[in-house]
Structures are given as C-alpha cells and as structure tokens.
C-alpha cells in the first residue's frame, strides 16, 4: 500500500523506529516539523522531547541525555547548525552517539528560510574546530529519509560519534507517494552499557571504539571536552593527547568500508557519470533516464554517505568514464571532493545558488 507523506515525517518515523527516546531542538524553518512531531510523539513512546531556549541549549541537552542513557536526535537548519558548532566538537571529543538532522536551506546567514539549498555539505564536515572527522548521510528520497535516519542512529552507536543526516527543504517538505513496503527498517544495534570498564575510553588500538557508559549505571562515569587520558582526566601529556586525537580520526577512517553507502546505477561503456546526492539526485536520475531513453549510455551514482567521502565506490563508478557531472544546490562544494579523485577526467559542476531547484533539463544538457 502507498502513503502520502513528506521527508520530515519519514525522518520522524525513522527516529521512532530506531528507538530515539530524547530529542531537543529549537524552531527553525524548514526543520520545525520534526521538532513539532517529536514533541507530540516522543512522550507517547516513553521518551522526552524538549524545545530548548536556543540551539546551543538544545544540542547541549542532547549530549547530556546521551550520556545518561538516551538515544538522542536534534534537528536544525544552517543558521542553527552554526550555533551547534562548538557542541559538535564536544560530541566528537566526548564520543557521544548523536544524530543531527540538518535540513538545509539557502544561505548564507538567514538566507532563504523557505528556499532550498545544499550549502552545508562542507560545513557539516569542517564546521567545528580541530578538523576531526564526522559521519554524514544524505537521503535523496522520502523513503531514504526513513532508512538513512535509522542508519544514522546505528552508525552513531557503532562509532560513538555525531552523525549528520543532511537533507534539504524540498526533500523534507515536499509531499510524495511512498510505497510502505519500501520503508524497510534498518537494524539499529542495541546500546550495551559497560558498567565496570577499567577506563572510560580506550585508545589502543587507535581504531577501537570504546564501549558506551551511562551515568548512574555501574562505576562513576567521567566525561570531558578537554584533551584527556583514557579515564577522562584532563591531560596535556603529548603521548596521551596524540593517542586520543589519533583515535578520534582512526575510529572513522579505518572503518570506511562500514560507512560507505551509495546507489550505483552504472552502465558498461558509459563515458559520463553523474554523481549526485539529496534532492538534486532525483533530478539527476530523471535526466539520466531521459538520456538513456535517447540511447545515450550514462552512469548514475547517488551518494548516501557524504562523509567520510565514499572513495571506494566513487573510484569504482568513475572507472572507465571520461566525464563526471556533479549537480548540487551550492557553488560546487561537494564537487571539490569528486575533483580530487577524478584524475584527468573532466569534472563538470552544475551549481545552482538562486534558490530554485536544479531542473532535470539542466543536467541533461551536460550529458552530451
């Protein structure tokens, strides 16, 4: 059976099915429907939802709640994400499982509250001090809003890290028809609380993800945003600080294979590959279908993981092609990642920044 829902609803359903039991957020277009739905539904599910006094309070409450045992999510848009910045770093440093939905709108600054954009693709990766890795997923359909929300919760648990779900105004607020059979739940791992760990964290081997702890369960739990030793006491000892920071990088980098998600629709012999994500991927797939209907061999790659950059799948999809077309609703921001992997292939950026979505016709023109 089919249903008529929007991406916001699919995200809320995904969060509920993933076992989310704490949400805090602050009203902002176009993310507010997620806040409103969870304010209604989380208490009905035994959870807690709060509207914070601002974005800083909202993500702060989420981080605190996560360490007290909750599965947490927050949702915002670019202006709010700017205020999340410092606490994103805290969640990285303290290794907090946290899902952050960024419903992108056109920037910079207030930009266009009800205007679609994809200008945060680099911001989520580099938006907090230090340059340490995060995970970012990007659904391109309403059904994927559901599945990738669940995936985000699973990855947050797996790697004890903030995971961004990067969507946009059009994906979240456009109503569409969904085959309910396509809302296939993604398995979200249970949180296993280590009650008597010898130390709060482990940095050896560097890629090992420490078990999760919880306030009030077992031994006293320590948490800090300062450089710290494995028992979360502040230290400036270079060996320990180095081990900590290498660990924060390696636990993501060495597990790339577990994080790379994409839909490969490649055609043997195709000279051109389209790489797209989010709402723009829908227009790109339409363009590719039209090109194929006109007997042009074109390959299509829809990225579900944006960070870390899914380099293996990108290189596989680019193999044998001579041109890569990257449509996105920003000045070519993610195209930079494609460019550095593309070797001597021609890379064509279609970057639209006037607040209008990219039309399939615009992409089709590039598929010569």
């Amino acid at each position: 059976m089919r249903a008529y829902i929007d991406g916001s609803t699919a995200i809320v359903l995904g969060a509920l099915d993933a076992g989310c039991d704490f949400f805090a957020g602050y009203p902002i277009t176009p993310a507010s429907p997620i806040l409103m739905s969870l304010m209604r539904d989380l208490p009905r599910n035994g959870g807690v939802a709060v509207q914070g006094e601002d974005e800083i309070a909202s993500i702060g409450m989420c981080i605190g709640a996560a360490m007290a045992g909750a599965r947490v999510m927050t949702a915002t848009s670019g202006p709010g994400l700017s205020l999340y910045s410092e606490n994103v770093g805290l969640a990285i440093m303290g290794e907090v499982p946290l899902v952050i939905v960024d419903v992108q709108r056109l920037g910079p600054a207030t930009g266009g509250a009800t205007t679609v954009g994809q200008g945060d693709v680099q911001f989520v990766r580099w938006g907090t001090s230090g340059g340490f890795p995060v995970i970012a997923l990007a659904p391109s359909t309403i059904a994927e809003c559901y599945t990738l929300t669940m995936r985000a919760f699973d990855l947050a648990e797996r790697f004890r890290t903030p995971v961004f779900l990067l969507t946009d105004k059009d994906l979240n607020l456009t109503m569409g028809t969904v085959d309910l059979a396509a809302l296939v739940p993604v398995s979200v791992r249970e949180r296993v609380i280590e009650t008597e760990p010898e130390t709060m964290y482990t940095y050896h081997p560097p890629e090992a993800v420490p078990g999760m702890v919880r306030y009030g369960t077992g031994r006293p739990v320590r948490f800090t945003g300062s450089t710290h030793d494995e028992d979360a006491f502040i230290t400036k000892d270079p060996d320990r600080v180095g081990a900590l920071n290498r660990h924060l990088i390696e636990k993501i980098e060495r597990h790339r294979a577990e994080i790379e998600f994409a839909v490969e629709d490649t055609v043997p012999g195709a000279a051109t590959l389209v790489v797209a994500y989010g709402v723009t991927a829908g227009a790109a797939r339409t363009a590719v279908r039209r090109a194929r209907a006109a007997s042009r061999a074109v390959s299509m790659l829809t990225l579900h993981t944006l960070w870390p950059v899914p380099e293996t799948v990108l290189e596989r999809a680019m193999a044998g092609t001579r041109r890569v077309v990257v449509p996105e609703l920003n000045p070519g921001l993610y195209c930079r990642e494609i460019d550095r992997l593309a070797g001597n292939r021609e890379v064509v950026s279609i970057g639209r920044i006037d607040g209008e979505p990219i039309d399939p016709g615009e992409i089709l023109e590039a598929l010569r």
Partner: protein
Amino acid sequence: MTGVTITRAGSYRNERAYPFCPGCGHGPILDALDGALAATVNDPSRVVIVSDIGCSGLSDQYFATSAFHGLHGRSITYATGIKLADPSLDVVVVMGDGGTGIGGAHLINAARRNVGITVIVMNNLNFGMTGGQHSTTTPPGAITSTTPLGNLERPLDICGTAAVNGAAFAYRGTSFDDDLSDRIAEAIAHPGFAVLDIWELCTAYYVKANRFSRPGMEQTMRELGMERGVIARRTVAEYAAAYRAAAAGDSGAPLRPVGIPQTHTAHLEDRRVVLLSGAAGGRVRTAARYAATAAIASGLWAAQHDDYPVTVKTGHSIAQLVFDREPIDDVSGDPDAVVWLAPEGRSRAAAALTRLGPDGVLVTFPDLPSLQHPGRTVLLDPSGLEFRLSRADRALAGMAAATSLLGLFPLEALQAAVAEGRGDAARMQQVVDAGVAMAGSTSADAT
C-alpha cells in the same frame, strides 16, 4: 582565609589535591559541596557534577562522583539533559560567574523550567583563569584587566534573576559561611531548580587589583542590595517529574504512516503537472493534498511541492502537483494546467503560464484579470451556483475542475478523499461537484 587550605577528604572527594591558588574560595566551596553530598545522597556514581570552563571547571576532577566537563557557560544545558533523561540522578552544576554571562540565557530558562538540578555559582567577580577580565558580576568601579577605567556596568543579580523567573530555591552566600554545606544540602534536596550564588575571593587577580578582602566583599554585597541568605524558597512542580506525569495522561499513539487503499482506477497515460496558485489561507495545500490522496487511491503516484513566503496568513500559496503512473523522482516540469485562484498568486501563475503548452489550460475565476498564454482558459463562474462559493472553496473547486479537464483520475476518488478529510464532507463534495459543473458549462476559448 589565606595561605594553606586544609582539605578534608570527604567521602565524595577522590585522592587528588585541589589545584587552586592560595586563598582562593573554590576549595572551601567544594569542601562544602562534599559535605552536602555526604549528607544528602548515597551513591557517588549517581551524583553527576557538571562543570564548564575556567578554574571552576576543574572542580569535577576532585570528586569520586560521575562528572561532565563541558563547554563554557553550557553546563546547565548538559545538566538539564542528564536530569530529563534520568530523573533519578542527582545533578549538581559547578560553574563560575563567567558562565552567567555567556550562558545567562540558560540560567534564566532553567529557572523558568524548574528542572531539578542544583547550580553552584563560584562567584569570584572576575575571570580568574584567563587573566582577570571583568565578568557579569564584577562590582561597580572595580579595576580589572578589561576595566582599566573602573567597571561601569551594573553586576548581574544572579539570585534575583533566577528567583523572579520562578526558581524553586535561590541562596546567596560566601565561601566563608559556616553553614554553606547545609545550604547546599538544602538546595540539592529542594525539588525544582536551585541556585546558590557563592561570592568568594580571587586572590590571583581581583583581590590584588582592588585591595579586596572578606569585609570589602560583604560591604559590596550590602551596597548593591544583594543580601545574603535564602532569596527564594518555593514549592514548584519539578519539570522532569511534571513532564512524565503529563505524558502518562496522553493516551495518543505515535505517528504511523496511513496507507491509502486503491479504490479506483485512473486512466492517466502520461505524467501531468498541475499548479495551484492562490493566497495564504485559501486552503490551496489542503486541496492539493485531497487531489494527491485521490490520485493514489486511483493507483497513481502523486507529489506536491508547496511554495509560500515566510509569513503565514498573507501572500501567495502555491502547490505544484505531479501525477504519474510511475514513481516520481522529482517534482519539476511544465504545467499542463494552471489553476489561478486569487490575486496573491498572480505572479506565480503568470510565470507558470509562460511554460504552458498549446494543449494546456488555465482554470480561473471571472473576477481575476485575464492573463496571456498559449493554451485555453476555463472560467469557473460561481454566479449560477445554488450556494455561495467562498474564497476558501476556490482551491478545491479549481482542483476538481482541473481533474475533470485533464482526466487525471475518477472524480469519485476525489469525492471519497474529501469525505475522509476534516471538514464538512457534504459541503466539500458540493464544492467538488460545483467545480466540475462550472468547468463543464464554460465555453472553452483560446486567449
């Protein structure tokens, strides 16, 4: 109190010695906290000391309890999250006066909300760790590294601010008070939000720059009218408990997607795009939703891209609808029908009409000016109807007309969809019939 601070090793302290300067008030305050914890709670792991930045932010490391050391001025937010997620924990914030500036909004709102956390402000009247800069609580005239001319700002009344905004408990004292441990214990035990503004000496900066002392501190408090003692003690509903009680009374079920059974069969062959262009409050998006539901009930796929300004009850309201036999991956496309409903939608309707093909149709009303386009115009004239077609009825009437003119799906499906809606079913069905009838009676002419 100068020179060596004698630290009593209470049951909630660990073996580490405090790192604070000689004469600093932080040690005595933490000793008082230790005593209060020993008097009020049992399990150190169930006490969470939440600190943030500055010398006060080092505090949690000297306790054998659970601890959270977060960002500058944000300790109240973490504490709120911890308490809301697990109300059985005892959550104590230890912050500095710096945090009442950068995190002032959190202090006010935590007081308002009355989450059951206890906040101890180690108020040494300046930023001690970063070089003795003035803070929100620096007294008037004080010399600090950032008030070389003397402080011109009035200091923040922490207790007054919290109290006037509903805090359950507010207390002002000093690090020299003999009963401080008891007051902290009282604050921890008191349901709701509790704050203790504890004045103390920063021997590294403030004392040196202002020849400050314990008597001077007490005199300053009197001069400012910031009296010592319990400023507020009231009975409140603790938020985490109140939330759970309210939730227990909500018998509603969480959201689930509602499947739309197929009850009709559409005979649409190609993708069709309909643009409804009207005014906010004109039920444009609702009409679009009925049409989409009807289309899905007829075996089609439908999608709806809305556009509206940031205001709510003024300006345009646009819904672009796409109907297809196949799943819809994007909502772009030139319109097959433009339904223009109200003056507010004029520019969007006119823009869409530039993309209308010769087979396209403009559905509109006689009171709206004519617009140039290559298709045909169907005027819906409500003057002959047996009921008054309101402005808010136009979108549904226009959508019914477009459904009929384009043969999108059976009109019975639209009738069924509106009957399932929230409004007066009989009346909405009357509006659908009227839209179809008006479209049928009009003389379709090219413009």
